[in-house]
């Protein structure tokens, strides 16, 4: 048990050690991200530059730092969103990227970009609206089958296919300049993220994560089953609605800046869960694993074809899809 700022937080020792290790790994990957680029900077130079010293201040503080911060914070957000939806659907495959919430948020972002041509607030709002609309659509279409099970996942995949087709049509219809920006973006990419893109999404994500931290205990209680949750006084409907809002909010905010980055939300919660040896899908390990995965994938995306930089979504899709197949194969063996 850890008492922190008036909050009584119950944390298992193993989760605590793991989280510290993951946080260290995340910072290490972040430092590597700051070092790596067209010219290699030593960690010493990076630290000096962060403090405003040395020749490479502009390169590191203004060019590389926003990208690295975005990789870490967006990874946290995607990990949390994945954990939320996997808890809700009680299915490792019920994560927002598989069931098409990314694609919906991307529709919102594309509409904002092509119709309203607004700033980052409009972009984020519109993405959230798009993600919520898709979530509502999936919920309604899978009515009668409950929230859990593969049925919802496959319906989500179908919705995702429709929405993705619609997105491609918007991109092709759009003005050439917008379309070129959106094509690199449609795979999910951190290329070209700079400071101006970040304040709004970071604020939204911080608020949502704080909200989720406050509610995480109730969420795990709800994951024990409807009967237990009701008996222990959890308002299930309100809690579910809140969880959906936070999950979609996290996914959509990331999508509005970086496009749909697939499979982090799928893989991070499950990897975190296995590392923590936990029964449910714990939030903190999921978030930190997400940050490590996304930052690592972005490094790989920059290194694979250097000096060209791949969209990070290409790397996460290739790795995450393999992981999904492995997940399915393992369940078959067990069955």
């Amino acid at each position, binding site marked *: 048990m850890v008492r922190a700022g008036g909050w009584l937080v119950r944390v298992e020792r193993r989760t605590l050690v793991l989280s510290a290790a993951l946080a260290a790994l995340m910072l290490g990957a972040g430092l590597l991200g700051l070092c790596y680029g067209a010219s290699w900077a030593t960690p010493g130079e990076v630290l000096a530059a962060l403090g405003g010293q040395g020749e490479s201040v502009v390169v590191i503080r203004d060019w590389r730092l926003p990208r690295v911060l975005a990789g870490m914070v967006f990874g946290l957000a995607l990990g949390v969103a994945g954990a939320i939806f996997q808890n809700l659907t009680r299915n490792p495959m019920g994560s927002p990227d598989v069931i098409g919430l990314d694609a919906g948020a991307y529709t919102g972002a594309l509409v904002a970009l092509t119709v309203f041509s607004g700033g980052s607030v409009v972009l984020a709002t519109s993405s959230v609206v798009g993600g919520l609309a898709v979530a509502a659509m999936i919920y309604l279409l899978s009515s009668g089958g409950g929230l859990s099970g593969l049925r919802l996942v496959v319906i989500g995949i179908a919705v995702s296919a*429709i929405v993705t087709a619609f997105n491609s049509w918007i991109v092709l*219809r759009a003005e050439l300049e917008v379309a070129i920006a959106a094509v690199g973006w449609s795979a999910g990419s951190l290329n070209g993220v700079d400071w101006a893109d970040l304040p709004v999404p970071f604020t939204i994500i911080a608020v949502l994560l704080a909200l989720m931290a406050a509610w995480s205990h109730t969420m795990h209680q709800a994951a024990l089953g409807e009967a237990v949750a009701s008996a222990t006084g959890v308002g299930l409907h309100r809690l579910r609605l809140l969880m959906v809002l936070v999950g979609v909010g996290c996914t959509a905010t990331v999508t509005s800046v970086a496009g749909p980055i697939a499979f982090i939300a799928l893989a991070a919660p499950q990897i975190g869960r296995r590392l923590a040896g936990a029964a449910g899908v714990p939030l903190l390990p999921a978030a930190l694993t997400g940050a490590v995965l996304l930052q690592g994938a972005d490094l790989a995306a920059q290194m694979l074809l250097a000096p060209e930089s791949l969209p990070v979504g290409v790397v996460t899709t290739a790795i995450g899809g393999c992981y999904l197949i492995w997940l399915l194969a393992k369940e078959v063996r067990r069955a």
Partner: protein
Amino acid sequence: MTLAARAGTITGRGAVLVAGVVLLALVAVVSVGIGAHAVAPAEVVRALFAFDGSPDHSIVRDVRLPRALLGVGVGAALAVAGVLIQTLSRNPLAEPGVLGVTAGAGFAMTVGAALGLATTPASELVLSGGGAALAAVLVYSVGRASPLRLVLTGVALSAVLAGLSLGLRLMLPDVFDRFRFWSIGSLAGREKDPFTLTLALIVLAVAGALLLSRPLNAVALGETVARTLGASVTRVRLAALLCITVLAGAATAAAGPILFVGLIVPHVVRPLAGGSVPWLTAYSAVLGPILLLVSDMGSRVLLPTGEVPVAIVTAFLGGPVLIWAVRRYGAGTL
């Protein structure tokens, strides 16, 4: 059922088939006329039977007609492959696109092009057929436990292969310029390439599927029943798998990965075929081309300038059908 009543249903089904073929011919003529430069249907017919070398006639003969023929071949191939997969796996959600078979074919072709192997139509066909077969075996071995699992495995494999293909295309932009439209699934841009071999293979495989459909009917009833009826289960399955590979491989080699045609068509014609696999196959071979030609027309008129890849149109139509099928059949089998 009396003999007369039986003969009655067969004539009825035959009439539907003839009506389907007539509709296909009409759609084909209209589709040849529609595009950036519209040609009147009467002029299209004249270009086909009384060619006079005018620009309109040249457009019809050199660009639109090959494209329509390709559309007919690809549509029939995908729809019949869908029938075979659905019947063979007794899974109402199965389809070469959703199961990752076309993605396997597309990826094999992409790798082949990167290595400089996909230079002739024949080598493209060999590559994509091999890729289709590998993907089918992989997806089936991982996901055979349930219909929904099979779909998930296929989608996951498609995602991985799409990511890898995109990476390869970004690495070697020059090699892939020719495949720009193909990579999303489109009939555009391949009109000038020779495709006689592709069409011949598709015709052979569709004929093979029609021959197979009667024993497949028996296999669909279950292994024991099939043995009692005298069908060799293993041989029928292998032959069906070969047909699926050829059909999906040839369609993908010609038009790239197009999803959902093999899902939509069998579901639409199943009520008409009344549980008979031979009729289901025949109807699908006619409706598949109609659907693809209509989608292709849509792909040409949806944008004020240029066109959208036809795979986008079929995904838009096919998503709702997948949702309907999941809601109708759930986790059960056909």
